[in-house]
């Protein structure tokens, strides 16, 4: 390799390596204000607005919207809201403030969690979730929740996927801690998803989404005769969330022009007239969103670099084909002994190439389809299957050698392998019925014990060894990558 070629290779290796390393170490977003990701899933108590931003919950006073703070930090030591806390529902019970929210746990499952506060500002979340929803209705937990006062208790509404759409379920509690399931409350017509639901003493409102993505509102009792100046704005702004909140207000959630979710507050509640709160911004939003984060773009760049690699590889494919043909044509001309093999290579490559190209050019032609089936399904597949079939025979001979009992180690290996093999197939039950007093109960208990032993061997002993190999190989791969990236591979 010439010197400039070496320099070029080194520069590319180092440059691309550096991008990937920076993409790993540098966050994709730097800085930005607390609610840079937008506001959604909110609740309003008095003049204090609680809302979700990104994966956490924050709050602000409507009188001083510039002052915002996080309700509480996510902690690496709480497992039920490890990855996120969303959709706050706030209640004042006696002198205590309580917040029911959706926690995203370490296991990625979403559960109902509770936080408490003395003043509504400093919040302390409970260490464990208060309610885990039934796994048969939503195995991973709900996508959205809301808790509202109803009569002498609290109703929890939550949404979960059902046959390709989203439907609503409900649960009830007297104290926000012990919940009892109430089942489906709104299925709506087919192919329509219910996104959110809210209620007050006189009416119920929900936001529905049709299969084509359009959203609409359902009000109960029917509000078609109601004159409401906000209906136009709600449709124009593509409002996707509605919530009746305390103080005869209504909270709306919608997506702003910069694709960040926003909240709007209206005075009045359906079926009364609703109008946007005085002081709302021109687009209806209750407050300006924070400064967005600076995007490093390293992740995008590393993705684009992968595309570049793909393009280079495709060029390589073309060059490889030309190189292959040149090499074998030269062999046919100059090497009389092996020219037969080269001829077979050229004929095979050209036959496959022509058939595949013609199949694309004339897709309806049965000749090329049949030729494709002959080459692919009748020749290449059986040849591959033959090689794979050889594996079975080789496995037996290798296993025979491994399990010859010459040493203590080999004896242990043989015993364990026999146990795993016999408990893996119905043979275990068959043997148990013969040797285990002939009774079916004995057979079943021997089978169960064998299965347990096999599971333990595979998941404890075998996994531990595999992981130890994997850890060593992982560290070795890092060291090797560093040597190559920094070009410190010695020359032997």
């Amino acid at each position, binding site marked *: 390799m010439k010197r400039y070629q070496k320099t070029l290779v080194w520069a590319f290796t180092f440059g691309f390596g550096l991008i990937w390393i920076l993409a790993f170490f540098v966050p994709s*977003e730097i800085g930005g204000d607390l609610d840079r990701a937008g506001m959604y899933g909110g609740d309003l108590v008095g003049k204090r607005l609680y809302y979700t931003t990104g994966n956490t919950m924050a709050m602000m006073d409507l009188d001083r919207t510039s002052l915002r703070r996080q309700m509480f930090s996510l902690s690496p030591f709480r497992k039920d809201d490890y990855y996120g806390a969303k959709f706050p529902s706030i209640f004042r019970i006696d002198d205590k403030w309580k917040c029911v929210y959706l926690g995203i746990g370490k296991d990625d499952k979403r559960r109902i969690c509770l936080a408490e506060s003395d003043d509504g500002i400093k919040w302390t979340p409970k260490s464990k979730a208060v309610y885990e929803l039934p796994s048969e209705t939503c195995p991973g937990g709900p996508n959205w929740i809301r808790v509202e006062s109803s009569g002498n208790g609290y109703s929890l509404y939550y949404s979960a996927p059902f046959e390709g759409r989203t439907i609503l379920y409900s649960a009830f509690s007297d104290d926000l801690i012990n919940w009892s399931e109430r089942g489906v409350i709104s299925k709506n017509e087919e192919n329509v998803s219910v996104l959110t639901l809210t209620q007050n003493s006189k009416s119920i409102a929900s936001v529905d989404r049709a299969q084509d993505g359009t959203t609409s509102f359902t009000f109960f009792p029917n509000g078609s005769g109601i004159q409401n100046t906000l209906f136009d704005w709600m449709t124009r702004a593509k409002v996707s969330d509605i919530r009746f909140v305390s103080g005869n207000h209504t909270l709306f959630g919608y997506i702003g022009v910069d694709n960040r979710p926003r909240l709007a507050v209206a005075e009045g509640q359906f079926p009364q007239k609703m109008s946007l709160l005085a002081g709302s911004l021109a687009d209806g939003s209750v407050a300006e969103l924070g400064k967005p984060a600076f995007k490093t773009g390293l992740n995008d760049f590393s993705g684009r670099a992968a595309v570049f690699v793909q393009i280079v590889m495709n060029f390589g494919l073309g060059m490889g084909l030309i190189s292959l043909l040149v090499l074998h044509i030269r062999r046919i001309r100059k090497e009389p002994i092996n020219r037969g093999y080269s001829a077979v290579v050229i004929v095979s490559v050209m036959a496959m190439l022509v058939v595949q190209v013609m199949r694309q050019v004339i897709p309806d032609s049965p000749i090329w389809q049949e030729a494709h089936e002959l080459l692919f399904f009748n020749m290449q597949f059986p040849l591959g299957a033959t090689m794979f079939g050889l594996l079975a025979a*080789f496995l037996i001979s290798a296993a025979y050698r*491994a399990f010859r009992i010459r040493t203590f180690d080999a004896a242990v290996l043989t015993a364990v392998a026999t146990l795993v093999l016999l408990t893996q197939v119905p043979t275990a039950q068959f043997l148990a019925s013969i040797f285990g007093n002939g009774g079916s109960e004995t057979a079943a208990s021997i089978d169960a014990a064998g299965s347990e032993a096999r599971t333990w061997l595979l998941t404890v002993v075998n996994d531990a060894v595999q992981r130890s190999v994997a850890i060593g190989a992982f*560290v*070795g791969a*890092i060291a*090797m990558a560093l040597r190559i990236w920094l070009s*410190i591979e010695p020359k032997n």
Partner: protein
Amino acid sequence: MDVPWSMRILALLIITLILGMMRSAKRREMFIRRIPGIDAMEDAMGRATEMGKPVLFVPGIGGLDVMQTFAGLSVLKWVAKQCDELAVRVIVPILNATVVAPASEIVADSGGEVRFVSQDEGAFAAGVIGTLSREEVATAFYFGGFGFESLLMAESGRRLGVLQIAATADYVQIPFFLCACDYTLIGEELYAAGAYLSRDAVEVGTIRGQDFAKLVLLFLLIAGSIAGVIWSGSLNPVEGLLGR
């Protein structure tokens, strides 16, 4: 989604340890434990010389995006150099086309042959088995990442009486090589082989760095196990700090 900060710190710690050991290895000689499989490589080369038969070297089936391939190529450097000194022919069958150029560069001085066999694993195995048989290979080295063809090649080599040494980090293939080969290097030993053979100070330092990095991971494993027992039923602090 971004990588958790704990993982960034851990990766940085591992890289610092490896780089630190590389630097210190330049100043003082470091001990490196003996690996029987690598010690046997010189004998295997001697066998090929005495028999006057070629050596076969397979650098795995991965491309240049697989670290095991690079580890295999670093051993190929040593094999090619030995073949050059002992006047033994080395044959290098290749499955992944991207490996042809670097492998050719490595064996260029020793007059070795790099053969692109096929991109298909079954066809590649058939090609290697054919080479083992037709060329009457004396010694075969399998260094790199492998799939199901590992057993096809190694078992055929054993039947033909070829002295075989294998090294792979693909733990599913390790039992096959253990059954069929004379010596097998397991997991990380593949990455250590190049350093062991070259005795280059920087490479030896890398292995020492790897050992220290493994000590860190071992400490985390023990701490996690203890914390898992103490905080059973809830999130233990080690798991919590390490993130996803």
